[in-house]
């Protein structure tokens, strides 16, 4: 079966080792993770992860179920094909000379990106958007000479009222324990 790109979102307890547990499931099946982004969610002690992987649909579904079995994973869903907003942030450091600087600035303006650092021979650009937007900006800047690129990986959220990850009950926490930073 053909491999396609899948976006999984998960709510996980921010305990040490969670990332390891999840990554190990992908590794066992030789999945390449395109990107993985982790940060706080709306609930205390729960982190939200967005994982973009390439794989056959049945394999991805199997991994999703395996992820769901991880005790520290509270919820996980495959939102591929849903109506979603996906965003990624990239920092691009591009080679710039007196003669190319204004052209670069023009391109950056068209993309509604920002210049966040200026040096004698470079510009650092911050751009937010979906993957496509970042790719196209990157491709346009390539001719000037890319010095560095850093991308956060994609985060995703469903449009409108639907929240596949919403947890109804309020989660009581264990009071008297000191918690470790994730």
């Amino acid at each position, binding site marked *: 079966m053909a491999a396609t790109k899948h976006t999984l979102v998960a709510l996980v307890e921010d305990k*040490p080792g969670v990332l390891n547990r999840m990554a190990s499931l992908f590794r066992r099946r030789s999945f390449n993770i395109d990107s993985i982004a982790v940060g706080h969610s709306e609930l205390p002690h729960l982190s939200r992860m967005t994982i973009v992987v390439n794989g056959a649909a049945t394999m991805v*579904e*199997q991994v999703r*179920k395996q992820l769901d079995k991880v005790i520290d994973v509270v919820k996980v869903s495959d939102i591929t094909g849903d109506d979603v907003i996906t965003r990624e942030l990239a920092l691009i450091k591009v080679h710039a000379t007196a003669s190319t600087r204004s052209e670069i600035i023009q391109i950056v303006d068209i993309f509604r990106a920002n210049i966040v650092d200026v040096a004698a021979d470079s510009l650092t650009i911050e751009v937010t958007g979906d993957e496509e937007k970042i790719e196209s900006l990157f491709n346009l800047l390539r001719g000037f000479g890319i010095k560095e690129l850093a991308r956060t990986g994609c985060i995703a959220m469903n449009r409108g009222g639907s929240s596949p990850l919403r947890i109804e009950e309020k989660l*009581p926490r*264990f009071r008297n*324990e000191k918690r470790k930073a994730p």
Partner: protein
Amino acid sequence: MKMTGAQIICESLVKEGVEVIFGILGGAVLPLYDTLPQYPKLRHILVRHEQGAAHAADGYARATGKVGVCMATSGPGAANLVTGIANAYLDSVPIVAITGQVARPFIGKDAFQEIDITGITLPITKHNYLVLDVDSLARVIKEAFYLARSGRPGPVLIDVPRDVFTEPAEFSYPSRVNLPGYKPTLQGHPAQIKKTAKLINEAQRPLIIAGRGVIISGAYAELKQLAETAQVPVVTTLLGISCFPEGHVLSLGMLGMHGMAYANMAVNAADVIIAIGMRFDDRATAKVSAFAPHARIIHIDIDPAEIGKNVRVDVPIVGDVKIILNALNKLIVSTEHIGWVQQLDDWRREHPSTVIRDSQGLLPQFVIRQIYEVTQGEATIVTGVGQNQMWAAHYYWYNRPNSLISSGGLGTMGFELPAAMGAKIGCPEDTVWCIAGDGGFQMTIQELATIVQEKVAVKIAIINNGYLGMVRQWQELFYERRYVATPLSGPDFVKIAEAYGIPGLKVRHKEEVIPAIEQAMAHQGPFLIDFVVEPEENVYPMVPPGASIAEILEEPKKEVAIWPQRSTP
């Protein structure tokens, strides 16, 4: 009340109803062991290798249905548990392993006897914990036992740094667990159950494939009711053996690579398959693309990740087997499938898979059958891995629930002796026979010392063929008899037993078999019989690797076939 971490662990174990701990101590767990005498309810069994501790906890858990507990020190002690933990993981056995770890300030510094055991066991445990805070200890133990025994059972490991054992903390044992990410589904979906009932009621050639899930859930009566009401024949997986009485007219025995020919033929011909508490392991399905080509498949399992993993499923039902079968049985109408049952009986007659041919030499099949006869089928059988395992599965008839303990998923040689020891310690009233391979037995032979020290009356039958027999069989059949690294020149097992303080007998001839088994049974304590059997006997039937379940190699040299008597319970 203020207690040390070590006392909190012991108190919690007592609260969980733990009676036996299998383990070996060392520097990192010394404070915990030092506390044990304060808790006389906790019986510690000193094994001779940590692998034995994990297998013993496993055997104990399978025999009793309770959670088995093992302990080890940090580093090498914890590493030695790994095979046993993996074994429990693949066969869904509830065990809790407690390991010592180096003190917190040393973690991550490659300290003496430090290994990252939570990292190592991450893919072979249902869950594991590194306890960095003594205040969380009681909660972690509560969760560990809950996770181990609930849902799809499995091993849980708790790694405790040495200085956590000695740190004082307030102890109160939580009454509930709070695991937002863990909510096993127990009730089957009513609509799916309805669909299933309809399929079964309309089936022409229905077949049940029952696995260990039936045993775990204790759904013996429910399975029997389903089979009898709808007149559905039952095949089992290796680990499902003894979930349905094998003497029952509807029992077709085991399926798979070494399944009964007629069981495999039934799978191949069925139009509806009800798979219950089993996971379509490749040894059970053979070539998966050719599995059950005519059947619509109903899959009942507590683990949603098993649904559709290996085999396409038409009706999945996620939940506890007993609860689901109870609900399902209410919708099943009494039917008969005379033609189908007749067909299966014909196949059974035309392809008898458990006859013992007449032979001058001592056949392993004959040995197993005599153990069945002498124990009257009342024993718990614990097997090794390989040919001995398959013969034990074929030639002993399991009518008593939960009477076969075997390493299925991992196929761990060396499981037999420590697991039999654990089973006997858990069920001291039961007769426990360890059916060992001469190869596997030597992998954990040191537990003979534990058996003597703890007075565990296990009966041991070594199926001594002088080979790593199952591998030799593959070499014979698929590698033109090139017996590379399979011949074993064993020690004298009777002398070894004697050195450990266990009486034993060497048996070479047919007529000595029954007296030897009777002598073993009459003896109060452990007893060993070294059965020196035909060295190049093969296990049949066999589905060659890569072939479909219908391509069955049967015993080639049928001299005199004696149709075996089946007793109906």
